[in-house]
């Protein structure tokens, strides 16, 4: 009826108009003109002109980015000129800065970048952090190596600290939350029984429902974060939750569902020509070949693939060869009980695709529904979300449910409250082990001596020996678990219940004074359970453990604000606040490394149980802070802050520390007349400092308890020397930036250069063991980071027709170099981490900080080379160093460039994001395994004829290097070249270009009737669907978990990263 009414209104006819800039009357190209209450519209042409057919007295809406939208009632005129006012506010969106305080971005003297919910959920990843990848300049995100649910690493503007974490602070609605991964207490330094491998339980921020986040603001330097205190020294990621924002009295509903299917992005290329065997083709002497005896025999231990060429006519006794009566060779116990059985050898054939067959298609579904509304007194928003993931490894999964409520209410004109509460329940029936050792299926397949090529994975589906269910594994050798047992029985499950939330009360005393009280907490209880089945390599009679983490943190603030405009030129905002931060962590561990009856996982079934380990970590920080903003004629902005912390972790005399910041920005384009091409120009500069405290309990020496010996309690001196004169460390950042927009804001550039210096960091300095201690807490060392960030936004194509083709794009570029300026006590090298095989400490990749060198350098053994750089051979085998101190490369990229695009045509939209990380190196344990084990296709040349390695050898008579002429058999050559101790042999270029996100969608508008303002979006989505990189076998984007640290630069038998593709459906009304 309404539509009919409009069409029947009297017609003014064709209206011609021109849209111009109100200031200089220049035409505005591409402005959108729409007729109110109609679907009619037009776009201005190169002269700013448009034509539209409109009835008399109707209203035109005119809008263009960077200008204030305008409405005009046309009456009966048929030509008109419409001036648009520049809108610097629109250009300078409101950003959320420290403490949840909104500011105009133009008033900021430092770089911030905002990601909205649409960008965040374009092709959503279950880990919130991954959804930021490529969207913010200066932020480097690395996906974890343990599949969905693993910890992702986010580093802003490089590493400021030796201590490995370098993670920014995560903040929800102005209150910090926990983003750490709390690891089980596990020291994996052996392959012996009872050694539980480390598990990545995922980072805290991963659990936040991205659909319930209205906006993510990334505060990059310590400048921006100065007011959050120490923990924001590496920047802050500020999440603003959804609020009800409908018209008053109405309710809005959003529903999103996505389903994606995951498959490996990349798998190692395995040869399918030769099977297990130590050396089937020696140049001289007896061949050393393989046949199955009992899984522990001489030729079947540590089985590399230097065996016989596959040939179905060759028959070999294998673990799955029939033994009569339905038994197989690997049914060792049964064969012992039935002595008459004889094994019939079976054809010698390859199964190089066994890992591919082992994997399943992953499935991720994410559903989220939000209701929001506005009342006369406030607003509310309620969101429920659910995540289910089935990993590509069978038996692994991740489940998550969340409920969130945000509401605000005005009791009176002066008194209001705002609160947010989020309950998250997450869990998994199995978080897979990664890394080196029999606990991990990746090791089973790709460790050194991984699964031989001749093993048929289908035979292993019989997990247990016939008649020995849950008692004796069915397998091909004793140092590997049956991978199905590993994933189905040897599980690491968890259930985590988390509540985070905050509540604030604001009172406006008068126009000038405001008071706010706010408190926020993050609490979780994470209950983890480990099961190990009988005859597991490390658990002959099974194992059971529970690990419980209780985490609590609270931040309580008061803030008194004052606002005054002393004259029409000046504007002053000043605030004084205080904060109390409290953190309590309690960890309880119980372990039984031997069970009585298979299949019962309970301590009542323990043969013996280790004493309970109980640890607590508590911390309190009191802070006072103040800040003031001055602006002069809305042109020049000055911002100063100061904060004083008192931390419980520092000694009494040194526990109070102050740190200030100042920033300045000026809107040049509003101050001087600039060429017409430049529509906006702002310059900014800032300097800030942030202080940091120490870990709890770093100041007093202690004696720690060891596991009792036969019931006798033991204590030993702590290897880490405490230090009761520790002082706070600090990071000082200076940055300068420019923000410029051209061609009526069609092209925008935001560039920042920065430098940060960290000094006096509290480190656990490794000291000579002969001092009686392995580490000492000291202050010292300086790290310098320098870098540049550039954001370039542009609209390469804007249609002149309504609903025409539009294309917006943006580039995020960043480059950072971190350098070690000095180290504590004048030492030259500080080994801050290493990645080792479990019991091969001398095969480590070392992460050394060396004075004058880049942070992120990795060191290890390398090929011995002649002065020309040729590899030196001896007896036909390459030589390598053993000193562990050759520079192998740096894991940091030289630069990161992301290119995101948004295209629309009528109701179609397409967006895609390319993420390019250039430079950096990584070490690959998967490559080590497949190369040293003869599994890789690269180990085929010379298999039967021998290999003469390319390089030089020392000529004894002349004492000079001559080309290597010594031929050795393939096993000797490849074992020598790909020696597990020769780190250089497994270093690869870490550069990659990924098609990170892709979304193609169609929006149905007003599906519930024209006035319903409803939208249904149906999209195809994809993540990580393409990758270009030099290494053919593994994804260089990966993290290792070692020594309770998440480390970049090492691919540590990671679960293959996945490409995921699927669809999403979004409904708003």
């Amino acid at each position, binding site marked *: 009826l309404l539509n009919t009414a409009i069409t029947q209104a009297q017609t003014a006819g064709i209206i011609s108009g021109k849209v111009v800039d109100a200031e200089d009357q220049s035409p505005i190209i591409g402005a959108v003109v729409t007729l109110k209450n109609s679907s009619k519209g037009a776009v201005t042409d190169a002269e700013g002109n448009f034509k539209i057919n409109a009835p008399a007295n109707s209203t035109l809406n005119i809008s263009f980015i960077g200008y204030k939208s305008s409405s005009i009632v046309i009456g009966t005129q048929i030509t008109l000129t419409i001036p648009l006012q520049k809108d610097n506010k629109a250009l300078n969106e409101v950003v959320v800065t420290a403490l949840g305080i909104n500011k105009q971005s133009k008033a900021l003297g430092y770089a911030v970048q905002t990601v909205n919910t649409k960008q965040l959920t374009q092709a959503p990843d279950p880990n919130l952090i991954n959804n930021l990848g490529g969207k913010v300049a200066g932020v480097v995100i690395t996906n974890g190596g343990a599949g969905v649910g693993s910890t992702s690493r986010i580093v802003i503007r490089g590493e400021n600290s030796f201590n490995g974490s370098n993670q920014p602070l995560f903040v929800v609605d102005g209150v910090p939350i926990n983003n750490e991964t709390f690891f089980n207490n596990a020291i994996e330094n052996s*392959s*012996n*029984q*009872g050694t539980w491998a480390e598990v990545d339980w995922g980072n805290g921020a991963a659990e936040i429902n991205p659909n319930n986040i209205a906006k993510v603001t990334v505060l990059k330097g310590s400048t921006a974060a100065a007011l959050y205190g120490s923990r924001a020294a590496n920047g802050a990621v500020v999440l603003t939750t959804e609020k009800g924002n409908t018209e008053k009295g109405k309710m809005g509903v959003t529903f999103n569902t996505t389903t994606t299917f995951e498959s490996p992005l990349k798998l190692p290329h395995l040869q399918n020509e030769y099977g297990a065997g*130590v*050396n089937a083709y020696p140049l001289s*002497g*007896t061949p*050393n*070949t393989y046949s199955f005896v009992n899984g*522990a*025999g*001489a030729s079947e*231990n*540590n089985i590399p693939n230097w065996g016989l060429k596959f040939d179905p006519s060759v028959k070999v006794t294998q673990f799955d060869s029939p033994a009569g009566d339905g038994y197989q060779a690997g049914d060792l116990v049964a064969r012992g009980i039935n002595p008459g059985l004889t094994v019939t050898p079976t054809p010698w054939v390859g199964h190089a695709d066994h890992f591919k067959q082992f994997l399943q298609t992953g499935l991720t579904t994410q559903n989220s529904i939000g209701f929001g509304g506005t009342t006369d007194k406030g607003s509310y928003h309620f969101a429920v979300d659910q995540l289910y993931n089935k990993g590509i490894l069978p038996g692994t999964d991740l489940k998550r449910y969340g409920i969130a409520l945000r509401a605000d209410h005005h009791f009176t004109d002066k008194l209001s409250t705002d609160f947010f509460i989020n309950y998250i329940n997450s869990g998994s029936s199995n978080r897979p082990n990664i890394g080196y050792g029999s606990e991990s299926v990746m090791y089973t397949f790709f460790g*050194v*001596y991984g699964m031989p090529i001749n093993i048929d994975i289908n035979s292993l589906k019989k997990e247990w020996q016939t008649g020995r269910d849950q008692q004796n594994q069915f397998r091909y050798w*004793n140092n590997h678990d049956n991978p199905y047992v590993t994933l189905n029985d040897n599980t690491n499950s968890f259930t985590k219940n988390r509540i985070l939330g905050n509540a604030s009360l604001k009172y406006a005393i008068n126009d000038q004074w405001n008071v706010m009280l706010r408190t926020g907490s993050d609490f979780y209880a994470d209950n983890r359970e480990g099961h190990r089945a009988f005859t597991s*390599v490390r658990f002959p009679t099974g194992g059971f453990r529970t690990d419980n983490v209780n985490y609590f943190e609270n931040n309580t603030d008061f803030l008194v604000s004052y606002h005054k405009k002393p004259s029409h030129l000046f504007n002053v905002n000043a605030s004084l606040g205080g904060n109390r931060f409290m953190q309590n962590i309690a960890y309880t561990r119980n372990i039984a490394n*031997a069970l009585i009856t298979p299949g019962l996982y309970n301590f009542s079934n323990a*043969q013996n149980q280790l004493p309970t380990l109980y*640890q607590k970590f*508590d*911390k309190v920080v*009191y802070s006072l802070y103040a800040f003031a903003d001055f602006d002069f004629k809305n042109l020049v902005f000055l911002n100063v802050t100061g904060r004083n912390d*008192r*931390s*419980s972790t520092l000694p009494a005399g040194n526990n109070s520390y102050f740190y200030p910041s100042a920033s300045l920005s000026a809107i040049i384009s509003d101050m001087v007349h600039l060429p017409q091409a430049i529509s906006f120009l702002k310059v900014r500069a800032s300097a800030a400092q942030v202080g940091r405290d120490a870990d709890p*309990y770093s100041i007093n020496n*202690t*004696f*720690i*308890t060891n*596991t009792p*010996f036969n019931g*006798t*309690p033991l*204590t*030993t*001196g702590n290897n880490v*020397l405490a230090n009761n004169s520790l002082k706070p460390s600090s990071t000082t950042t200076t940055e300068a930036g420019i923000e410029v927009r051209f061609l009526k804001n069609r092209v925008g550039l935001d560039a920042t250069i920065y430098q940060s210096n960290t000094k006096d960091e509290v480190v656990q300095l*490794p000291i*000579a*063991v*002969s*001092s*009686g*201690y392995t580490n*000492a807490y000291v202050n010292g060392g300086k790290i310098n980071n320098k870098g540049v960030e550039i954001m370039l936004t542009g609209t390469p194509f804007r249609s002149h027709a309504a609903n025409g083709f539009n294309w917006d794009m943006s580039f995020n570029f960043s480059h950072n170099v971190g350098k070690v300026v000095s180290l504590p006590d004048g*030492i*030259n*090298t500080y*080994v801050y981490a290493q990645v080792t095989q479990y019991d091969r*400490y*001398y095969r480590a990749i070392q992460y050394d900080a060396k004075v004058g060198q880049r942070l992120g350098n990795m060191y290890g053994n390398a090929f011995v080379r002649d002065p020309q750089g040729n590899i030196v051979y001896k*007896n036909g085998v390459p030589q390598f160093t053993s*000193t*562990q*101190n050759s520079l192998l490369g740096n894991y940091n990229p030289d630069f990161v460039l992301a290119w995101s695009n948004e295209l629309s045509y009528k109701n179609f939209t397409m967006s895609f994001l390319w993420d390019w990380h250039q430079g950096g190196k990584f070490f690959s344990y998967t490559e080590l395994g497949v190369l040293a084990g003869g599994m890789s296709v690269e180990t085929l040349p010379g298999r039967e004829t021998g290999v003469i390695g390319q390089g030089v050898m020392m000529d004894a008579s002349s004492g000079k290097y001559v080309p290597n002429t010594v031929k050795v058999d393939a096993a000797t050559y490849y*074992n020598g070249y790909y020696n597990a101790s020769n780190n250089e042999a497994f270093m690869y270029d870490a550069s990659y270009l990924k098609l990170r996100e892709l979304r193609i969608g169609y929006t149905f508008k007003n599906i519930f009737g024209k006035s319903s303002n409803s939208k249904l979006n149906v999209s195809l989505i994809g993540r990580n669907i393409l990758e270009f990189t030099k290494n053919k076998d593994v994804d260089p984007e990966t993290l290792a978990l070692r020594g309770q640290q998440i480390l970049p630069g090492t691919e540590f038998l990671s679960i293959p990263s996945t490409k995921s593709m699927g669809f999403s459906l979004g409904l708003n009304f």
Partner: protein
Amino acid sequence: CSKELKQVNTNPNALEKPDATTLLSNTIVTEFYNNANIVWTLGNGYNQYMTFSQSYYDQPTRYSPVTNEPYWIPMYEAARDANTLYTLAQTKNNPLLQAAALTLRSYAFAQLTELWGDIPFLQALKGNTGVYTPSYDSQQTVYMDAGQGIIPSLRRADSLLKANPSGLMEGDVLYSSNTGNWRAFINALRLRYLLRVAGKVNVAAEMQNIVNDGALMQNSSQSGTLALPTVTPYNFVSLTERSGDFAVKYMNSTLYNQLQTTQDTARITTYFTTNATTPAGAPFNFNNYGGMPMVVDATEAQSKQASNFNPSFAKGTNPALIKARVIAYAEQEFILAEAALKGYISGSNSATLTYYNNGVMGAFAEIGINAATAANYLVHTGVPLDNSSQSSAMQQIITQKWLANINNGFEGWIEFRRTGYPAFQTGDAANMNNGMIPTRFLYPTSEQTINGKNYAAEVQQMGGKEITTYKAWWEK
């Protein structure tokens, strides 16, 4: 709030003051357990009792230059705790605890200097006073320094107990405060280290004094051994290693040859199992056992004829085999045999013979073999002591000492370095140390990176480059 801050930062997970009882237990356990732990994977290889059949594991049996850092660290930790204990014992005025602390500290330093050579010593263990990078001292200082040296410390320990023959020391998991046993243990160690330096220092008088005092082990029940639990984390490693790792360890051919030459049926069957070619239930025959020479990767034939360790090592069925040993009665007797042979102590040849026979009997007793079998072994060809020349007697004494020290740290290798007995195979091309038997481990890499200046100074003595064949003092 100051009070609250202090309270919050009080460590709830650990003691802030040392506790003598638990610290003592821990120091004993650390030293004994680590000795047993290292012997199974590295020591038996260096001592040529064991060979790995696969190059993946070969470092110990092929003498790849290694740092052995996992042993360096617990020895310094033990020395540190012993030092803390010594100070505590002085405050408590407990002579037994003082003696134990001195002994435990000396043993840790002895292990360090005998495996690495010159080591940080006089400045060591002072991290808590800010000495993070202690300088190196000569091996001679480590043994002989009047204040802290191994030998003077052990001497002081013994005299403390001699003067205070009774005492109580809680947490003594080794001898339950039995000062007699402690004195015997201390003096056995004194004899070991005195003999080690006998080529450099006149040790005769002190050795004779010890013998005259008579505070020595009388039989294997007084041996410095610690029964380990059968469950992690303090079990003998063989009980909990992966079966695949157990299966690649074979009897070394050097050991096989010695056992076979003297027809040592008892010990070969106790320590090892028949080879893969032997049918089940076959009667005993030395041909059913075999040793593996130093190889890169054993051929199938080599693996099949060589013996793995006795399955009791994996099952724990023979408790005598899976103890942690620091010094046994047998070794004490062999030391005395050599001392008598060389005239450091009185008694000459007849004493030598008595001590030698005691040593052999003690060695059998030590691993639970009965005296009759041992007595029978004493008359096997090649076993009765041939006193006709010092060298032939030395060869027998040291070889029997070597057999007695299976599964005891690196004693076999250290004594080989001192005496050349028994003849070790060098392994030709399979040897990863340029065809030589090393005389030391490399310093941990952390010494280069962390203690670089002092490390460099030490390496100067080796000719500017760290080598595994450098001889520190008594070996020269």
